[in-house]
């Protein structure tokens, strides 16, 4: 379970997250949506222990992220938007290192790596050095490492960036599977179609404040737009926070 209680985080004078209170229960797939600079990444960084709130508390499976960060992190599988891999390790060696840090024995490590390798189709490059991987291959490997220890909480920042359509489908299915099996899934995304398709609940955040929390039908009801897509609802909800777009500049006349 994930709990944010009146969490505020500032950068100098700018408030990135303002009084965020939110609970995501086990078995729930939650999608955090918002325009650029709304505070999504700051929220995720506080959730995985990279940043501390200025006020309020973040708890994961009952452990406070400031007081017991290591305990809380033990329950988390994290997929960042910019995956990190050791260039001079092969994918298998990387997964073995992650498994070792997670306290798995050799047999469990081998079995879990085999399973994730099959899930994410890593076999063809698992024994190559990571420096030879494309962005999509790296992302798949990082997904595998996050799923390796079957975490109670999955935190995913922009899950679909750099993935091919087949892997996107796979990831969506896996996330639903995990949620159905009791995992708490927290993801931040700009891909509204994905959120609409797989999320149980969504939160829309603008300028650090949570403007909406609920399901897509609840959002439709709130905005009295029953047939509208999530994209239309999102744009309507965040319209007030956006400046009117600048008119396109007049094209320069072509030189004769």
């Amino acid at each position: 379970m994930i709990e944010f209680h009146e969490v505020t985080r500032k950068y100098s004078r700018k408030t990135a997250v303002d009084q965020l209170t939110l609970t995501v229960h086990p078995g729930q797939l939650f999608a955090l949506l918002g325009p650029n600079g709304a505070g999504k990444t700051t929220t995720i960084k506080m959730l995985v222990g990279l940043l501390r709130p200025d006020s309020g508390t973040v708890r994961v499976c009952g452990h406070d992220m400031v007081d017991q960060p290591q305990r809380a992190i033990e329950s988390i599988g994290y997929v960042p938007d910019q995956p990190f891999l050791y260039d001079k390790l092969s994918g298998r060696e990387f997964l073995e290192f992650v498994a070792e840090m997670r306290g798995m024995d050799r047999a469990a490590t081998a079995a879990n790596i085999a399973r994730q390798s099959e899930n994410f189709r890593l076999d063809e490059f698992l024994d190559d050095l990571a420096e030879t991987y494309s962005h999509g291959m790296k992302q798949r490997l990082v997904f595998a490492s996050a799923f390796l220890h079957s975490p109670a909480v999955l935190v995913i920042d922009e899950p679909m960036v750099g993935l091919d359509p087949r892997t996107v489908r796979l990831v969506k299915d896996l996330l639903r599977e995990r949620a159905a099996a009791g995992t708490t899934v927290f993801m931040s995304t700009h891909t509204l179609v994905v959120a609409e398709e797989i999320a149980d609940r969504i939160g829309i955040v603008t300028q650090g404040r949570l403007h909406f929390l609920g399901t897509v039908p609840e959002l439709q009801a709130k905005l009295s737009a029953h047939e509208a897509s999530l994209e239309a609802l999102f744009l309507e909800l965040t319209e007030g926070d956006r400046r009117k777009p600048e008119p396109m500049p007049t094209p320069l006349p072509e030189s004769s």
Partner: protein
Amino acid sequence: MSTKASAQPGWPLADAVGPAAERLSPRDEDRAFWRLRLRLARNMAREMLTRMRFRLTLIVVLTGLLWVGMFWMFLDGFAFLEHGIRHPETLDQTIRAVFSMFFASLMVMLVFSSAIILYGSLFRSPEVTFLLTSPVRVERIFLHKFQEAIVLSSWGCVLLGSPMLLAYGVVAEAPWYYYVLLLPFLLAFVYLPATLGAVACLLIARWLPGRQNVVLVAVAAAILGGVAAMGWWLWTGPENDLLTAGWFQEMLGRLRYCEQRLLPNWWLSSGLLETARGAWSEGLLFLVVLIANGLLGRQVCTWVGGQTYRPAYNALFNRRGGRKRSRAGWFEALLGRLSAGLSGQMRLLLVKDARLFRRDPVQWTQFLIFFGLLALYFLNIRRFSYDRHYTGWVNMVSFLNLSVVGLLMSTFTTRFIFPMISLEGQRFWILGLLPLKRETILWGKFLFAAGGSIAPCAGLVLLSDVMLGVAPLILLVHQLTCVVLCVGLAGIAVGLGARLPNFREQSPSRIAAGFGGTLNLVVSTLYILAIVLLTAVPSHFYLVAQAAGESRMLDDMALPDRRWLEFYLTSGVIGSLVLGAIATAVPLWIGFRAFRRIEF
């Protein structure tokens, strides 16, 4: 929402949420990280042995040559002292002073280098983002990066220290266990300054977050101030003439300050000297003192790391969000005026590179420290009163100073100019999609490097010449040589940077430390030596002959000899110009050719 709650086959629901992970003991964590390092080292070694044999051979050969050169120099130096100083007590004092001064300097450098390296790896490396979101104790993450910083900052210490200590062992006919204990002594020693640097780095990041630029400038100013004060104290008011026995005794007395018994460099010097003398038990005692203090330092900085690392990481992000307004518009306006004759595109590229340079304090503080140190030395050069002892020294020292300025510039072109193309390559989609010729990019880098280096280098050389009081003709030759050096070094760095880019690496220091950077440094060094020898040797003989003629000691010098010297001097200057032109044009041509064909 068709896929909601539709569990797919293949994932057993029973273990969908795994049991709480078993927390690793500190010993198991240690093993996991050692295994990681071994795997990384093994994979890297395998890759180098299979795919980079030529590079590996070149690096080994060049390092070996450097090591042998230093060993020979130290061997000669210690033999000179051994034969020159007859009094055993004075000899002992001298060797102790040399050791203490050498290791005190290393200690100060290690404190700063380990702090700077650790700052980069603890707060800027993507690896720590991964590790901080893993279930590893924060003390382990800190130790992992701390040990990495020790290796990176101390290999130079071992490279510099080992030839000196081996040479001393040979001259002093030290027993076999002296050689066995050398490495343990050096390793135990480097731990202590690295510990100090690590604690300083953590405390600055924790309590002065976002003020690293201020700290860097303050440190640079402190180093310059400290060296200036030390130089002043050492060289002011010597009672005796340069290099006389009295002067020597006076200097030894003044260097006693670095033989404080509470300093690790004294423990190291004493331990090594006692061991070399055959007093192995005293030597071991000092080794144990170093190890014990090193272990205590490790405990202290691990504790400080555990307490401050996460809060420091968090505090740094607090400051990063603040908007920084661009300042120093005057600098760019000046640059704009200076480059008024260039095309608009070229001017924009120059301003962009100047902005990047100005906003990266790591670059300009290093520039400031080393050029400031040289300027201090040049300002104090009169105190050595070379001219009182031998007129030829003035010319020799002036050319040595010119070479030092050139060598310093070559390290900067290797460290900062060579990696520019590699770094540009990673963002090439920006420049590559602009209506800009690829050649313009390289010309921009070349003009930035040459233009940026000529003014400080020529200024330093002018200062050295004025303080030494060299003849106007030689001053002119020096200024010309300096311009030739700067242009050639810029051409080599830009040309080789474009020919041997490394688009995988993000860190400029790692790009510079690779094969291309090493080759750039070697070629630049050879180029400097060739240029200086072409102009220095004829000028030296010309001046010697002139001075001898003026003093009527060689009035009967044959006319052809004088003509020959004039010819030698003229052809040396012309030769250096030709060599400069070749060294600029050929690497640039190679670089342009490669850059046109390069695929990003």
